[in-house]
């Protein structure tokens, strides 16, 4: 698979199906911009805002997977580090947990992100010489370490979490006035999306994709494979840390329970449900996750102990299983195929979309074979 295939082919002016595509995109954009007028407080906050920040967390994973071939399960740990770092240094009302150093909120944001990126670099350095399934295992172990660390080092995680973390003034109270936080999350999502799209086209991004496809050859060409992967991991950590900051503002608190194994798996599920083949998939997956979460608690029929409103995890697990078994490129892939069916007539005019599905498929198998073959020789040379 060549790196050129990642650049969508577009013709301008748009015709037929492409025009429809742009119309849908514009409609989504308008709905997102006007969401506070369309949805009530609860939907705006608990569904949309939550989906946006969860999407940012998930897109850091999608990015690492899609362009770096790294399935990282450490993203939740990293956003937890950012959240806890910020929570400890800023002012908390009633001094409820954490160090409560009383810094201003913005300084706290910077500190949280810097700490998370630095630790992300460290984690990246540890994990970057491992590939495929090894990488997944090592990052899972790192994630659980972070969880247990905050669970046990209560000086830093507070008395049952750090609560009432102060926010920048313009956000107000996100419970009674969710719009500012919503727009913040929306803005961050767009910025993160554009940043990642930009990064994958820089020489660094191209090299990263080359490393994903064939680390051995890239190493022979003189690229420092492990360093590239570690830097990509740090970029992913930067994105995840933004999600961490937003999650603390959203929940007004952070506790070890916010970054437990369930949350780690949840972010993986979100990225996979949405589709690992495109960055947008992360937000689509997050929205689906938030909706399933919301409806499962109320509308699940009761079948004894097997299925009832408490069995959200079973439902999401089954959805996840079905997606992985039947449509490895997630909802995006399903959408692509539906789209291809709808616009079958104009398929020749649409090389980009028609190629997307097999591309995603190839990526997933690529990562698979890569690990099966074991780390290439370059991995050993640097050891």
């Amino acid at each position, binding site marked *: 698979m060549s790196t050129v295939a990642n650049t969508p082919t577009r013709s301008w002016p748009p015709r037929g199906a492409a025009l429809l595509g742009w119309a849908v995109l514009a409609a989504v954009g308008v709905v997102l911009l006007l969401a506070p007028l369309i949805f009530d407080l609860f939907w705006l906050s608990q569904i949309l805002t939550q989906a946006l920040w969860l999407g940012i967390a998930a897109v850091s994973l999608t990015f690492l997977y899609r362009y770096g071939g790294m399935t990282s399960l450490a993203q939740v740990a990293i956003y937890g580090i950012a959240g806890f770092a910020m929570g400890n240094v800023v002012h908390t009302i009633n001094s409820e947990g954490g160090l409560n150093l009383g810094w201003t909120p913005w300084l706290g944001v910077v500190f949280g992100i810097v700490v998370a990126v630095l630790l992300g670099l460290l984690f990246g350095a540890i994990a970057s010489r491992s590939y*495929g399934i090894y990488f997944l295992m090592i990052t899972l172990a790192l994630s659980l370490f972070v969880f247990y*660390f905050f669970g046990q080092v209560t000086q830093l995680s507070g008395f049952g979490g750090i609560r009432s973390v102060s926010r920048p003034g313009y956000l107000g109270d996100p419970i009674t006035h969710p719009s500012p936080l919503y727009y913040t999350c929306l803005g961050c999502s767009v910025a993160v999306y554009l940043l990642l799209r930009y990064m994958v086209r820089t020489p660094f991004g191209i090299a990263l994709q080359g490393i994903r496809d064939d680390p051995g050859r890239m190493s022979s060409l003189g690229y420092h494979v492990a360093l590239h992967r570690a830097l990509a991991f740090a970029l992913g950590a930067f994105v995840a840390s933004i999600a961490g900051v937003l999650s603390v503002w959203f929940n007004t608190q952070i506790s070890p329970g916010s970054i437990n194994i369930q949350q780690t798996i949840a972010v993986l599920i979100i990225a996979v449900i949405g589709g690992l083949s495109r960055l947008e998939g992360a937000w689509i997956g997050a929205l689906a996750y938030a909706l399933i979460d919301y409806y499962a608690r109320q509308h699940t029929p009761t079948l004894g102990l097997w299925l009832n409103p408490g069995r959200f995890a079973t439902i999401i697990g089954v959805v996840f299983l079905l997606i992985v078994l039947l449509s490895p490129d997630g909802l995006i892939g399903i959408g692509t195929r539906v789209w291809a069916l709808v616009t079958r007539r104009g398929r020749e005019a649409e090389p980009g979309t028609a190629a997307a599905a097999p591309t995603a498929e190839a990526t997933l198998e690529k990562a698979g074979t890569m690990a099966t073959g074991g780390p290439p020789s370059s991995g050993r040379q640097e050891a």
Partner: protein
Amino acid sequence: MSVAVGRTSPRAQLGTQAPRIILGILGLVVVVWLAIKASQGGTTFIQVTLNGITTAALYFVVAAGFTLIFGLMRVVNMAHGSLYLFGGYVAYIAQTHWFGGGGSQFSLGGASTTSIAGFFVPLAFATLVIGLVGLGIQQLLLRWNQGQDLRQALITIAVSVIFADQMVAHYGGIVQSIQQPTSWPNSITIGALRYGFFRITVVLGSAIVIGVLLYLLFKHTRFGMTIRAGVDDRAMLSALGVNVQLVFAGAFFLGAMLAGFGGVLGGTMISVGPGLDTQFLLDALIVVIIGGMGSLVGAAIGALLLGLVQSYSAIYLHFGSLDLSNYGVMTSFILVIAVLAVRPLGLFGRAA
């Protein structure tokens, strides 16, 4: 911001030596510190060491199944922890229903009774059931995805999510315990040392027996030779006319059985309850990351290292008035980093 450097410069040579030197010093400091502690309180030190070794024995039983499945099939079975916990629950339910009458309940006064059969029948039953459950997972979900190891890992993650939720639904949040036979003593005394009987005989004994049996199986039976051949070259094995699918099924069955067996031992030595699936998955992961995926010896060494480090760090992180014992979790972390820094594939790992 492309980064390119030369492949093997003298500085890189030095760079690879530096971690070893640092780690050597670190290891020395730890050993000296432990020696000081050992000289200060002999009995406690022996007790804590035994704690580490018996915990390691349990880790080994669980991790051996995990590494066996990986070694042959390249499947990282993320549901291994779920199989472990489910094994514990199956044995608990079997013990309660078939040998009930309070026999399954732990009693400080020892008023209730459990016969020898009341322990071993549930043990055998649970081991078998979990083997079959594992076989079912492999046949239904994994078999037709062979070679796509990331997808297989995701599938087993999904299975573990569903299993964890269903176990909470059916068995609740209360911690349960499998009862050892009442005729066995709680603890045995050797000189001034008093130690848990079950831990030191059954758990440690089982681990040693399992380790030896697996070793013999691999080295001296046709099945084992087939497995080893499969690890090295699956295509060739298949071309030689061996039914690879049958070998895979057998190995997965065996690996899952070990998880279930470990679950019963753990449920008796410790307990059965929600969250243990994750904990033992993590422990198995760390063991094989340290020891090297697919290596039986690696699993044994990794389990021993992890068990001892956890055990020592629980009580020897007091430095004068400075109490760092709640940073104990960091020691396992440092152990993993230390091993990976020197050997990215683990102590006994090798590139396939």
